[in-house]
């Protein structure tokens, strides 16, 4: 735990002494809850269609696979044609592309970003490293199975998969969303304890609240 996050007594400018506990004072401690599809079937269907045709990807490249996303924005592959756009902030994104190997240090940031995204949200594992560690299978500092830490909707295998493979993967994700089966956010909320235990077993300097609103 970092020193500035520890419980301590501070002196205010007017001489008062107050107790500060940053994790409790500055962050919300509520866990995530399951959000049911609250509408009639036909509206939920319309919403699922809209969600599938408007995938906003969080612009966060976690590993070498991020290089495969750049050609998708440029004329050669132009993913904007398929309703896929990049957003710079987790608040506005729905899709998290874990691009390649994930070091433990990055995993921490990934969890924070994932939890700040608004549901329903989706995770795509890009490259073999997210499935079984890939060429980093015996690395001391990367995670091997992404599925243990975040609910993954689609894997795109390859080292590295080409941009076409990514487009095919996104189309596959769209089918899953339209079928109403992309409930990763709810799965995360249901199995919250399990995911947190897995995350904490690899992240040793856990200095954030259990759920980042």
């Amino acid at each position, binding site marked *: 735990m970092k020193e500035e996050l520890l419980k301590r007594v501070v002196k205010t400018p007017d001489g008062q002494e107050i107790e500060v506990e940053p994790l409790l004072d500055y962050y919300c401690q509520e866990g995530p809850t399951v*959000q049911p*599809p*609250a509408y009639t079937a036909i509206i939920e269907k*319309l*919403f699922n269609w*809209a*969600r599938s*045709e*408007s995938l*906003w990807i969080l*612009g966060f490249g976690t590993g070498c696979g991020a290089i495969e996303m750049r050609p998708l924005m*440029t*004329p050669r592959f*132009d993913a*904007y*044609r398929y*309703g896929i*756009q*990049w*957003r*710079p*902030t987790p*608040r*506005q994104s*729905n899709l998290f592309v874990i691009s390649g190997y994930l070091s433990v240090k990055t995993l921490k940031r990934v969890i924070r970003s994932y939890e700040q995204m*608004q*549901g*329903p949200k989706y995770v795509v594992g890009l490259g073999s490293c997210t499935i079984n560690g890939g060429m980093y299978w015996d690395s001391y500092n990367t995670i091997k199975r992404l599925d243990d830490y975040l609910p993954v909707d689609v894997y795109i295998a390859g080292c590295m998969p080409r941009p076409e493979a990514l487009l095919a993967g996104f189309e596959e994700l769209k089918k899953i969303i339209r079928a109403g089966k992309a409930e990763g*956010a709810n799965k995360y909320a249901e199995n919250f304890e399990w995911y947190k235990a897995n995350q904490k077993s690899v992240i040793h300097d856990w200095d954030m609240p259990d759920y980042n*609103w």
Partner: protein
Amino acid sequence: MMQALESFNWMRIPYALLTVFIVFNFGFLMNATIQKIAARVGRRHGIPVWQNYVDLIKNYALRTSITHGVMFYLGPVFRLSGGIGLLLFVPIIYGSDMFSNFSFTGDLILALYFVFFGTLGMALGAAESGHPYSAIGITRGLSQMTAAELPFALAVYSVALQYQTLSITDIVAAQQGGVLHWTVFTNPLAVAAAMLSFLGSMMRPPFDVVLAPQEIPIGPPTEYHSSFLAMMQTNRALFPVAKMAVYTSLFFGGAASWPVFFLKVFLLYMWSAFVGVVFPRFRVEQSIRWFLIWAVPLGIISILLV
């Protein structure tokens, strides 16, 4: 009071709603078209024309949203009411009883106020989100907006002095009778100043440093999401069209029917799109300097000449 109520034509309200509806759809389709044109310049296909509608439904359909306080809620509301207010208090279609909406004799001043209103509301709302990127975005946005509004305000005063009225309807009436009666020919310097200011307020390059995703991530709306963001998207369709309606009325002879209105607004938007695809992005201090050096003197000269 009672007399005012009795003499009020209640049919104006459904027509006002109809105006909002038409402008909303036109704004959405036009924004997408302009995005497509900009994409074609970059040799891409760009988004489908209906993409913005899908994004809007998607954002309303998100199941969770979090808030940072009352002003965080009110920010998008202020922004949207700035857009709708501007739209409803200026005469959209000249000479049409139905689509003059709630315009009145002093509406020019009110329009000037509404142009700035949304930005101020946004500033308060985004500031409450507590995100440092929002704070920087607001600082940049307000400074650039102020510099860009200055030449526009000067041009508006120049036009008001020229026609000796503060009513937009009267200004349009004075421009009837042929293209050469338009303000753009009778007072070219004021129009030039206003058109340069126009570039600054459309959030397109070279003046899009405030909202550009590649700069401090997306600026003021960093923390805005789901239905908050959807309201701001709605405003992004309404507000530019409303603003261009003011421009059309003040400088380009107004519009006597919807097709003429659509054409003039589209051409006005194309002006900022053309400049946008040609010129790279300015930093904030560069754009402020640019407005002060090139646009403000034009506005001052135009007032002096009038």
